[in-house]
């Protein structure tokens, strides 16, 4: 062996397991052991052989890290970020975990976080009730099942039993048998030295609690759901006046049926094409998606600096396009190193050498022209975890084609997709430049993962200067 493993160049391993995220970051450690950070481990519900796949991934993680993960990061609570911790729990039982990081909204002691979580729970239960109601078709209405199918998309984000299993996976990590320290990240504060690593630090770009999904107008959703057939759990906060008018004005369907006016104009068969019995329910799916969109604001976004002044690995979580502009203006204190030097977001983004594309390349997570403009490093490599075929079968646009174009341009063709082999050299890249990139990428012969080595592959002469 040429050099001790701990002095290997930093490496990012993207698992190629399907539509989901699982990244293993390996950095030089303080001792002989390298430092390992696992960022998310999940797979979309409905993917073929979910359990088997996640077990294979987990076992690879176990073997590679020799049973010890310094840090586990859960960026947000979608099933395709956390399913591995449920489906392959028995494997993770054997792994020692030093720290577990979540976004601020997971903090059980924070009242605002608690309110957000409670609302979310209520909303999901209500939407499920609505979906059930819709799925029960009524004669002459073809929209019901279609609307139910629409609703199943946002409901499916949270995994089986509307998020109950995913929730347990998160709790499992918090109470992991190896007793890890739990951190709830929020923007601001200082750089976090990654303990166990030689020189790396992490900077939290998001979430920012001020941007927490406004609890303003949850009443609209609750009001909507109150009619859907799942009244709130009886607590006063949720109680909503769901009737539009006093009882004395309400005519029950039975009474209305007896009135010629409604019988002739609304209930008659030849008037069926104009009925609006279910139109109101169509707001369910957009409301659910909007709810999910709010959840993006709560995800944990990190910039990992390999060493002070060195390359940066950017893991943006589920952050959205509009967030990037704000990142440039962030700054953090750096204790210890070089007195109280501060690091700025703009600087970190300019040094980003590895960009993990958010949300499987969906449009809303695109960095946008602002973000793209901030990632100016000539060495930038992008990693995109996606399964386009699977997404297309579900009718989803992932990755968004125009975002793909942007990424290819900003990374000069150095875009690694988990659902494709090594990319072709684009015309604008020189042969030399491309060879250097090729040498830094290692595909697992079993197709389970692909590694990108910053600074070139260990043991090879030369490498990225």
């Amino acid at each position, binding site marked *: 062996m040429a050099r001790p493993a701990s002095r290997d160049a930093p490496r990012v391993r993207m698992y190629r397991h399907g539509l989901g995220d699982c990244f293993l970051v390996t950095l030089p450690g303080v001792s002989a052991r390298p430092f390992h950070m696992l960022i998310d481990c999940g797979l979309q519900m409905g993917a073929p052989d979910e359990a088997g796949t996640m077990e294979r991934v987990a076992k690879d993680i176990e073997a590679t890290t020799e049973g010890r993960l310094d840090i586990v990061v859960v960026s947000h609570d979608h099933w395709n970020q956390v399913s591995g911790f449920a489906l392959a729990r028995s494997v993770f039982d054997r792994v020692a975990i030093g720290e577990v990081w979540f976004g601020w909204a997971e903090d059980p002691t924070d009242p605002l976080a608690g309110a957000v979580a409670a609302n979310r729970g209520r909303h999901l239960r209500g939407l499920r009730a609505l979906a059930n109601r819709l799925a029960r078709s009524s004669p002459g209405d073809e929209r019901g099942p279609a609307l139910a199918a629409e609703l199943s998309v946002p409901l499916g984000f949270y995994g089986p039993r509307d998020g109950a299993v995913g929730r347990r996976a998160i709790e499992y990590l918090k109470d992991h048998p190896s007793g890890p320290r739990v951190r709830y990240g929020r923007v601001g504060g200082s750089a976090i030295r990654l303990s166990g690593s030689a020189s790396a630090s992490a900077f939290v770009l998001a979430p920012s609690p001020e941007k927490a999904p406004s609890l303003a107008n949850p009443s609209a959703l609750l009001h909507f759901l109150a009619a859907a057939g799942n009244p709130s759990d009886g607590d006063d906060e949720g109680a909503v006046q769901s009737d539009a008018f006093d009882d004395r004005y309400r005519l029950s369907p039975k009474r209305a049926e007896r009135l010629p*006016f409604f019988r002739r*104009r609304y209930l008659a068969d030849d008037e069926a094409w*104009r009925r609006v019995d279910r139109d109101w329910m169509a*707001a369910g799916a*957009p409301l659910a998606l909007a709810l999910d969109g709010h959840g993006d604001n709560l995800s944990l976004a990190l910039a990992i600096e390999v060493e002070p002044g060195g390359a940066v690995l950017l893991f943006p979580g589920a952050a959205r396009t509009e967030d990037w502009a704000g990142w440039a203006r962030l700054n953090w204190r750096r204790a210890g190193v070089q007195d109280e030097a501060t690091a700025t977001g703009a600087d970190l983004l300019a040094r980003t050498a590895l960009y993990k594309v958010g949300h499987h390349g969906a449009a809303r997570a695109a960095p946008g022209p602002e973000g793209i403009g901030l990632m100016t490093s000539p060495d930038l490599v992008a990693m995109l975890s996606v399964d386009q075929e699977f997404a297309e079968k579900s*009718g989803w646009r992932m990755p968004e084609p125009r975002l793909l174009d942007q990424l290819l341009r900003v990374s000069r063709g150095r875009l690694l997709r988990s659902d494709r082999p090594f990319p072709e050299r684009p015309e604008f890249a020189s042969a030399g430049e491309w060879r250097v990139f090729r040498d830094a990428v290692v595909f697992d012969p079993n197709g389970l993962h692909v590694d990108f080595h910053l600074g070139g592959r260990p043991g090879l002469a030369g490498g990225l200067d």
Partner: protein
Amino acid sequence: MRASPSEESHPPPDAAPATSSRVPPRQLATTPVSRRLRVFAFDPLLGARVDTMGVNQITVSIPWDDSLAPGPVGEYLEVIDHDPSGGCYYAPVNLNDANLLATDGLAPSEGNPGFHQQMVYAVAMTTIRNFEQALGRRVIWRPRQAWECGRKDGPDEYVQRLRIYPHALREANAYYSPVKRALLFGYFPASSSAPGRNLPGGTVFTCLSHDIIAHETTHALLDGMHLRFTESSNPDVLAFHEAFSDVVALMQHFSFPAVLRHQIALTRGDLASQNLLGQLAQQFGEAVGRYGALRDAIGSVDPRTRVWKPTEPDPAAYQTTHEPHARGAILVAAVFDAFLTIYKARVADLLRIASGGTGVLPDGELHPDLVSRLAGEAAKSAGHVLTMCVRALDYCPPVDLTFGDYLRALITADTELVGEDDRGYRVAMIEAFRRRGLYPEGVRSLAPDSLLWRGVDENPDSPGRDAPFGPPEQSPVIRAGGWNLWADRKRMFDYAGKLRAEFREWIADLRRTGDPTALGALLGLALDDDAPAGVDRDPEGRPRFEVHAVYPARRVGPDGQLIMNLVVELTQERKGFLDPNRQDRVDRGLGGAATGDFVFRGGSTLVFDLETAEPRYIIRKNILSGARLRRHREHLANMVGRSLWATYFGPSNGGEPFALTHRDD
């Protein structure tokens, strides 16, 4: 001088009578001309604020409908108050109840569903009446095509009534559904944490907002007139639908002097200030932010000085704004700008008199007479602008409308009726559009003359300049003059169907006996055998075209001049492909395809003089235009939004193109 639609309904002599039944002779008490009904002037919660108390109720006059039944159900509308999310129905109000007739309907009340029914009916009818007065004919709703009725073939089916559901949705939204020919209104709780002036936890009803009712009714009216204006072939099309509906709601609102009097007193005659605009759909806006784009397009409060100032129009905004509501707001701001200019010109002399020539009004409250006069002038200006905007619809191309096209339509329509623009209305419009970068294509200058649509003899490409449509005596235009007699909308609809068939025959004849290429070039169609293979063909292999619409445009000008025009719209279909190479191959007949990636349309609007059969204007959207085809293609590619909905469900908008707030935002 211009005629204006007033609160009292006095239909011009040539318009169809308001009733659908004949008035029995020798009746001692004649049928009333109009019915008065009370409605909220602004959204209800304003009534709770001291400074607007007394303003929040107005009485509108709508044409008397003999056939009005409980619902209300009348000639044009049927209000069916089913509340599906509430699992109940509300009894239909009977506006012919003697008590209600005596008191101008129910008293405005948020808690009484009968009043909600009354209000939607009254405001929708007001909007319809304004349209009919401006257009000089009765309005028709979008008919049902054969396939919608489950038939493979056959004529369109007449839809007599637009349906209105005042409490159909349980969300902060309202929409016109083209499929159901219905308006659906929603209700929702005011936000508990940021209720604005709304009662926390109180219910906000979109069906109690004059502006929202007028806006959605206008969608339905426009849809009935221009069936293809829902086909999004360029960024302006859907934006226009939104903008036009906003313009009608705005201008209609301002045409009530009672409403304005209060505001004019407060703002001392300066209608551009925030107060007046801030009232628009305020309740809804505060709960949900609906009119944000519009308000910002017109003006905003400077965060430093906290003073409201008008927004400087930014021509670049039009280039970069694509979302329909926001893009439409630019057009609305332009029309509003023109309205302000017109109003200021009209009241200049009043202010000179009132200020003794100094231009500075005395401190303190304005004299009530002055306020009344100012309010009257504002209402008149609004009425005129509204009429101008509605009339322009008859001078629009049948498909692929742009804002620039609409400007030309405005100028042409107004020039037809008002020869001398002594009040500067046209100039005001042009200037307002210019400042926002809304330029028509292919015109040399923005002088009013240059903006007029062209007729036949001015068209350099027009073949056979003399009578390209054949001798006038043989033109079906002459025979189409029998429109006046039909008071009944259904008969009008049937007659229009017959006329369409006649015109179809006529054009087919012209093609057969004349030069199809030249004729096609004149009409924006591809009529000869060299037409691209992608153009729809009839069973005999000839390019197919349709006479999309035929209707009269009959107006009375301010000086008594009678304009009698016949508008004929022709359209054609062609397969469009996203890949230009594929398009080329298919058009050259080298590759068969059952359908294209999209439907590309072209054609023209012809405006004939009803008496002489002379073709006055030809407004073309050439089916062979490569530039238009490219633009349509690009538009489709760009239309993929960044919204959550677009990621998971593609570029649709949640199913309803005319929702007040798009659910996918």
